């Protein structure tokens, strides 16, 4: 009996090991190519398949992080369609090579593009503009979605480490910005880190947006204690007059050699800071506002009702307002919970001055009075998005999963563990997530993108510089379903997903389009082209068209300052032309109907060919000319 039993165990182990062996050997093989899919894989494939010639349902704009760009993809195919250069030169579109974009970049070679935000009208995406912050250099940029081009980069004085950006108010009145890495105020001031608590300051910024053309300007800056202001969101509906940011390091210290990861994680709770932007607008217009570095600066002590702190589980990351604007959800990165606050209770607490203390003129609201629930979502909750069907989705960085949970109202004494509906594992270590129209008043509730920090082993190996992963998850049914793995350049931090038909693009700069500003240096025919010398300045008005460049010879003397205005006189879509001068580091790309200007000093004598870089026609190779430098 006993021997028989042992024999059975032996056979079983043999079986298991052989299965392991087979799996081990087959592993690499079966991952490559299509293999034989299960029906689940087949339905996922169908759900993401967009047939050749067909169009995707949504635009996905992911931030490129320290690539400084925005990546555009289609959903559900997840196909990368184009890259919009923002803070970084991009030879592919000639961005950062012509005078206008060079000026816009302001001498920076990069930016850290973090959080894209679509413009809104009545809390719905309107498809007009896309804003994005530069976490490194205190800037915010605006992309016009009419032509997918960066139109403005605003440098914000006094701002250091612009992470709490960009989030837009309900009618795009304001775009947020906030200091993540506090520095002495105003910027440019010297103070040793030993004086961190007193001399170092953060600022919260309201960037005013012109409702007609989107032009941004600094509306106001609020000087706040030197915490690290992290992520934000703007209110909606009942909370529409407010902006929210999380902050960590409420310990208010930077100890040399003390490791911020340790010193900023000591207190049990950090904060959400909330600002009434209507009050801020009034305050900025009042006599009490100071002007520092050319912008209106507000001290919260001077303006009661301007800003409040709400305690939140320690070292929080995201703060997100639900589509109905009532619930404010804070995710405590180092606490396995998200905390739901009731905006109605917050208003009551403010009315009855239910405060526990005041920090630098900012009252701290009594946590117990405004907290609706603490949801035990899992380890490392970072950011929350919504489906418009009463559920929230929170990214869990440490657990590497997305938790789906039910939003309030809850029954009295309900078990918060029961609020969690489902979790889906992701590959791997998710940061932000993005749902279709997820920041609007009416999310679509069909797609969710998990923006993961690690992707090891999920793609063909490309060596140690491993790309980022974005996973498409179907959230339309009762259960979340993983549909697709996509990979991107470094490094998406956040994304926006908008219904494709909301974006109305132009594909040609029509010569008589009233919305395209006339370039005074545009010329529209070969007859109008000219070369004008003025002292040692040579100015050229040039056209490019299939398949020639006019003029095709430019004669200058060594040391001349050369300016060339290049107009692509095509009015046909997709007829782009390039203009490059060999050995002169000149790379211009002009879209149909566009005029760009390049300026340089002809400091190398000799003969340099110039040519069209952007393949245009059967005789593209013949599209060339000569710069003669005597």
């Amino acid at each position, binding site marked *: 009996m006993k021997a028989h039993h042992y024999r059975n165990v032996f056979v079983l182990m043999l079986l298991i090991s052989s299965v392991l062996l087979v799996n081990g050997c087959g592993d690499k093989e079966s991952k490559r190519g299509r293999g034989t899919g299960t029906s689940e894989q087949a339905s996922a494939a169908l759900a993401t398949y967009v047939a050749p010639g067909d169009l995707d349902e949504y635009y996905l704009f992911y931030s490129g992080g320290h690539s400084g760009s925005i990546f555009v993809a289609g959903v559900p195919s997840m196909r990368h369609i184009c890259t919009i250069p923002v803070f970084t030169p991009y030879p592919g579109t000639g961005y950062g090579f012509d005078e206008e974009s060079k000026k816009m970049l302001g001498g920076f070679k990069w930016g850290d593009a973090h959080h894209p935000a679509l413009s809104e009208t009545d809390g719905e995406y309107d498809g007009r503009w896309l804003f994005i912050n530069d976490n490194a250099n205190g800037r915010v940029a605006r992309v016009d979605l009419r032509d997918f081009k960066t139109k403005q980069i605003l440098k914000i004085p006094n701002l250091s480490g612009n992470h709490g950006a960009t989030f837009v108010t309900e009618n795009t009145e304001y775009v947020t910005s906030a200091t993540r890495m506090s520095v002495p105020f105003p910027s440019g001031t010297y103070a040793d880190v030993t004086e961190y608590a007193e001399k170092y300051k953060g600022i919260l910024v309201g960037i005013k947006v012109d409702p007609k053309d989107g032009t941004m300007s600094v509306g106001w800056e609020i000087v706040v204690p030197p915490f690290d202001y992290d992520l934000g969101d703007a209110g909606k509906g009942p909370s529409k007059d407010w902006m929210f940011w999380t902050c960590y390091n409420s310990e208010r210290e930077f100890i040399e050699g003390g490791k911020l990861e340790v010193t900023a994680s000591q207190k049990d709770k950090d904060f959400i800071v909330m600002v009434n932007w209507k009050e801020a607008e009034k305050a900025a217009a009042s006599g009490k506002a100071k002007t520092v570095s050319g912008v209106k600066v507000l001290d919260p002590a001077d303006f009661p009702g301007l800003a409040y702190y709400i305690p939140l589980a320690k070292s929080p990351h995201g703060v997100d307002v639900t589509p109905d604007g009532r619930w404010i959800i804070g995710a405590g990165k180092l606490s396995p919970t998200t905390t739901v606050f009731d905006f109605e209770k917050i208003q009551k607490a403010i009315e009855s001055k239910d405060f526990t203390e005041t920090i630098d003129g900012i009252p701290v609201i009594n946590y117990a009075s405004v907290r609706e629930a603490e949801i035990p979502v899992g380890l490392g909750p970072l950011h929350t998005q919504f489906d418009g069907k009463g559920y929230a989705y929170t990214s869990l960085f440490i657990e590497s999963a997305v938790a789906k949970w039910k939003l309030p109202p809850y029954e009295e004494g309900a078990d918060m563990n029961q609020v969690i509906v489902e979790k889906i594992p992701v590959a791997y270590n998710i940061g932000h997530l993005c749902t279709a129209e997820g920041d609007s008043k009416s999310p679509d509730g069909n797609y969710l993108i998990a923006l993961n920090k690690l992707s090891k082993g999920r793609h063909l190996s490309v060596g140690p510089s491993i790309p980022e992963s974005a996973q498409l998850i179907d959230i339309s049914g009762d259960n979340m379903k993983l549909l697709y793995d996509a990979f991107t350049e470094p490094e998406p931090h956040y994304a926006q997903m908008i219904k494709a038909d909301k974006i109305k693009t132009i594909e040609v700069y029509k010569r008589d389009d009233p919305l395209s500003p006339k370039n005074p240096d545009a010329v529209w025919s070969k007859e109008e082209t000219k070369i004008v010398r003025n002292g040692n300045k040579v100015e050229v008005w040039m056209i490019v068209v299939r398949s020639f460049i006019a003029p095709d010879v430019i004669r200058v003397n060594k040391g001349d300052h050369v300016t060339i205005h290049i107009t692509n006189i095509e*009015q*046909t879509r997709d007829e782009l032309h390039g203009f490059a001068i060999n050995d002169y580091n000149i790379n211009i790309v002009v879209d149909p109907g566009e005029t760009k200007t390049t300026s340089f000093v002809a400091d190398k004598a000799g003969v340099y060919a110039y040519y069209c870089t952007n393949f245009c026609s*059967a*005789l593209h190779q013949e599209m060339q000319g000569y710069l003669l430098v005597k």
Partner: protein
Amino acid sequence: MREKLRRFRASLDFPLVTRSRLTALLAAFVIIPGLFLPLWKLEFTSQQYPEGLELYIYSNKLYGGDDGNDLTEINVLNHYIGMAELREEDFTEFKWIPLVVSIMVVLTLRAAAIGTLKTLLDILVSTVYLGGFSLWRFWYMLHSYGHNLDPRAAVKVDPFTPPLFGSKMVGQFSVTSYPASGMYFFILFGILVLLAMYFTYKTAERMMPAKPA
């Protein structure tokens, strides 16, 4: 047959009956939209132009689809084979066709007021002649554009004539040519004139003695 011809000839000086006058009046108005609508349409499609390039011929102008850009595009493409640029000023008919058509309107109105069957016959004959001549001019222009190619052109092609009616492959393009909306008003004009003649002829015939004495 000879009898019919005699009757027709005899009816030519017959003043128009009311129904004919009204029909002629209608005809005079029907022709007016033809002055403002395209008379002919050429469509060029190929693999890389799935939406096609469109060229409309009006009584007084050439017009490209896509807000006029298709004409520019056709010219850009044609320069490779050395075809002359299609330019409005090279088509003298754009100057005289509107004038001639306007004269037709005035004559038709005159016929409606004081005309006889003969006046209408003159209008009908002129219309057919004008139509025929215009078609020939159109074919001649197509032919000469396709046959007077610059010998120094980058791409050498055999001389060709784009189609007047129907489809034809020209290089990578399938070119389709057919009358456009305005032309149907001209055809309708002709039908109405014919109808007006018919009404009067019927009356004239009834009132005519069966056989000359």
